[in-house]
């Protein structure tokens, strides 16, 4: 696990909780306790109302595939071993869109709008990343 050589997420203080969540196999979404908005990506202040009264809700981890691309070529050396891989934009049930990878599927079966669900993969002792697979 410690020989992971791909780029790790560059955290901000207000996103710590998110990455603690993925370690516990939970996909957390930042939530504004004042205006009720679900926020992605996590911010220091709510981008809707500038409240600092922010908390977290747990996502059900399900959504639909808004779009995808099967990357086959033209990436940095550290990603080459992964090729081909699928970059995905996923619309979560909680009303936010995240970027991720789509895994555990045959490329020819992928289509926009298919249902997907979250899976987790440990990158290092500190970081667990979130991917999606067909639901």
């Amino acid at each position, binding site marked *: 696990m410690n020989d992971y050589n791909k780029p790790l*997420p560059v955290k*901000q203080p207000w996103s710590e909780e998110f990455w603690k969540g993925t370690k516990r196999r939970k996909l957390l979404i930042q939530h504004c306790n004042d205006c009720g908005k679900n926020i992605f990506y996590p911010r220091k202040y709510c981008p809707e109302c500038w409240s600092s009264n922010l908390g977290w809700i747990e996502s059900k981890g399900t959504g639909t595939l808004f779009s995808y*691309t099967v990357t086959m*070529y*033209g990436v940095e050396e550290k990603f080459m071993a992964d090729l081909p891989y699928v970059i995905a934009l996923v619309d979560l049930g909680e009303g936010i869109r995240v*970027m991720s*990878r789509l895994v555990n599927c045959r490329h020819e079966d992928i289509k926009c709008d298919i249902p997907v669900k979250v899976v987790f993969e440990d990158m290092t002792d500190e970081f667990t990343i979130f991917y999606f697979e067909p639901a």
Partner: protein
Amino acid sequence: MSRGKLAIVGIGEVATGWYPDRTEWDMIYDTCIEAIRDSGLGKNDVEGVISVNPMAQPKLQGEIGFGKVPEELGLKGCKDICIVNAGGSTTTNALRLAEHWIQSGIAKTVLIHHCTKHSSIPIDEAIRFFATAGIDLQWEYPFGMTYNALIALSMTRYMHDTKTTPEEMASIVVALNKWAQLDPLSMNRKPVTIEKVLASRMVTTPLHAFECNRLGDGASAMVVTSPELAKKLTDTPVYKLGEAVRYTQATITQRTDREGIRKAVSDAAKEVLKEAGITLKDISILELYVAYPLGIVNLLEGLGICMPGEAGKFIMEGNTSPGGKLPVSTMGDAVGRGHTGSGVGTATYVECARQLMGRAGERQVPNCKYILTNSAGGSGMNMIWSVFGRELK
């Protein structure tokens, strides 16, 4: 930014190519001196220098940003310099700053220039630069995101929604290439066909290698001044007649409103045409710097020239190619010209001036009167329209 406060009076450019034997400064000298000579000004008449930031080249950025250009060129009348950075919309901002300098009396004449030399950047460094410039380091980069993938994600959804075919998308490259074939300054002049585009290597679905950008070395420059001085200097001043802009979003996950970009395009376009006092029908050419074919589709549909989903067909029918009813990107955009970073933006304005000056050679669009230009930074973080014309309205 109101009507007719700035005019382009001189242009200079080196052909986009691959010049491992030329230095950046070699190209800076040649383009800047060509533009100043072309303007009819003497070297000491240039009062301001604004440089387009060579984002991928920090060393050159340092040299230029700390004032080396007027010193190297011996511009003894130079009062100030500035380096500007807004990604692909940098040159637009350089023009805005120049307009401010001219109108406020800081500088009566301003040299705007760009140089990027990709051949001096080691390939892995270049890939890393483009993988991280404008890609979010927390929420995108760890997944192996690239610029090509970013465009591909939008393209997948667009093609899914509109049933636009791979052939129609490929025809955009063919249309741009037809312009590039006529342009001695373009790098990719070898004829391409739809079949060749679709047979080129799949980079990231549905984007083929020929639909991506080939990096090149390039430099270009222009001299701008007030309309009053422009009339004394040249018979063919190119006036900026209007400008309008909308900010969208920096990252793709934030673009959940499907109409978002199209609305930004459309709102800003309405504003710029109103300011210039013309309508879309008056436009002779659309000079667009969008870097990827999908950008042209978004702009044509955002302008209302094509209904949503019909731009691919419109382009495939040859409407935007040489001889077509609405010429688009007469130097072939980055796909045809070769990608010189933010320099494609500079070259787009130089080409716009060339067309309005009637000096575009085989690419010259007859009776070219008004040109609508577009620039955008990052992956479309903003949408800036400008109108240029031969006469002050």
